[in-house]
């Protein structure tokens, strides 16, 4: 996998290569070169399988990190391509011409993180949430607990047990809370 990185380095602005296992590695690429790199990996390096495509919200750094997980069936290597997007301008080039399922991932990312992929088929259609008018729910600042308390109401007479206190009593009765 390191050899692959060395081959890619003169062609694309790839950085921060990290070999997680012998068959799994990650690298970073700036947003503007990402689509070209992914196309190159698919067409010339044998990474024909889009395993999944998702994002991580690093709110403290002001970025969304996109992860394109690609797989090469011939060499059995899996490569995660990381692309950082500014949270202030979460727009990315669509890869729907490369894989049929990419449009669905992009539709999901639009709904769940608010990341836009202009031109991606159906990207503005609801994926799971109908009539959602809150912020995209997978963003870190969306508080599931506050939303639940605001939206739903407690059932009268229902007893609640704090899971943490219960596990403490069951598993570590002799240890105090640290």
């Amino acid at each position, binding site marked *: 996998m390191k050899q692959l990185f060395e081959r890619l380095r003169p062609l694309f602005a790839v950085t921060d290569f990290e070999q997680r296992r012998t068959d799994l590695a990650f690298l970073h690429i700036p947003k503007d070169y990402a689509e070209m790199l992914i196309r190159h990996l698919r067409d010339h390096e044998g990474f024909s399988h*889009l395993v999944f495509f998702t994002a991580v919200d690093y709110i403290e750094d002001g970025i969304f990190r996109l992860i394109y997980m690609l797989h090469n069936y011939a060499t059995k290597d899996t490569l995660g391509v990381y692309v950082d997007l500014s949270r202030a301008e979460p727009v990315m080039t669509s890869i729907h011409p490369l894989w049929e399922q990419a449009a669905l991932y992009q539709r999901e990312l639009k709904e769940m993180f608010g990341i836009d992929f202009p031109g991606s088929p159906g990207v503005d259609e609801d994926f*799971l949430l109908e009539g959602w008018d809150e912020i995209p729910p*997978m963003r870190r600042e969306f508080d599931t607990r506050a939303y639940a308390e605001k939206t739903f109401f407690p059932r009268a007479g229902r007893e609640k047990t704090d899971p943490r206190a219960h596990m403490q009593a069951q598993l570590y009765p002799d240890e105090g809370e*640290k």
Partner: protein
Amino acid sequence: MMSAPDRSRYPELVDGKPVVDLDSEKYVKLWHGPQHPGITGNMSLELTLCGDEVVECKTHVGYLHRGFEKLMERRTWIQNFPVVCRIAVPEPAFNEYLYAAGLEELAGIEPPERAQWIRTLNLEMMRLASFLAWLGGQAGAFGNGTIGQWTVTHRDYLLDLFEEMTGGRIYHMYMLPGGVRSGLPDGFEERLEAVLKRVEKLLKEIKLILLHNSVFKARTVGLGIIDREMIDRYGITGPNQRACGIKRDVRKDYPYLVYDRLDFEVITGTASDVYERTLVRYREMHQCIDLIRQILERMPRDGPFHEPLPNVLHWKIPPGETYVRAECTRGEKGYYIVSDGSLYPRRICIRGPSYTHAFPVMEKMAIGTDIADIAGLMVSLHTYPPEIER
């Protein structure tokens, strides 16, 4: 020279989207699901029909969306086990295994030998139980409802064994980081062998009643053919891929647990239609039984089944990210796990084969299919909606 297909019956395409004028009385919109015996789980297909033929299909999910991936971000690592097993109801064990394996990799834990064998046994039993549920659905979609009753009964015999082994029939929470929660109960192996014999007998009968049934063959041969070119283009994995002759299986290609110490071949087909996919899965059910027997014959009976963990209420996983994969009944299942070194996961993304099988693949293959065959086509792709909705 072939003439161009007659598209006069199909809706006009504008900007790549079909325009359906229901007032033209040429088309009918029909919702197939979410309440329909011929749909797999809580999802629906929005079909546009021209006569009996489907001219457009749109998959809809969201009926049981609970935001699993989001919920996991505010629970401690160990508290997520009751969440992950709900991400594929008929086969929760693959989720448990993958989540545990991902945490073990990030935390540098090596489960003991005996735990690896017990996990493999659990996963193969799970595969057999899940295939039994699917087989009943596949038969029922073509009018053989009785077979569904038989397979569900036999699945229940396996659930009895899961209850003995783990304490739970459906959701087990049995595989934890470091190993499994317990060894096998006394007499378990004999009872498991007795159930395997009953399942074998059932499969023999199903072969005669379903696979040799001329009506079933007439309706499934040539239906829903997945072209070889579609495999990578759509990210198709598992039996849907193997039925068109591509020999790929995570258990063989990227061995995990003790699969490299078991003797088995990757089962493939050629025709890639609904009948062939049924046949591939049917043969994989026999393979499951064989693998379970190999495990019972070779597994160690003594030794620890769990590595001690630190206090799990204060357990911080070292920062890092990984992707682990396994072969579930429907193809490649994987967990992408990101830790920032805190008590909680930073991000977990679940890769389930249904994501692509139920959406782009189903939407493409439904077009031109007779409405009566839609349920059978859907079941032949073997999809579970929770892993789409996560």
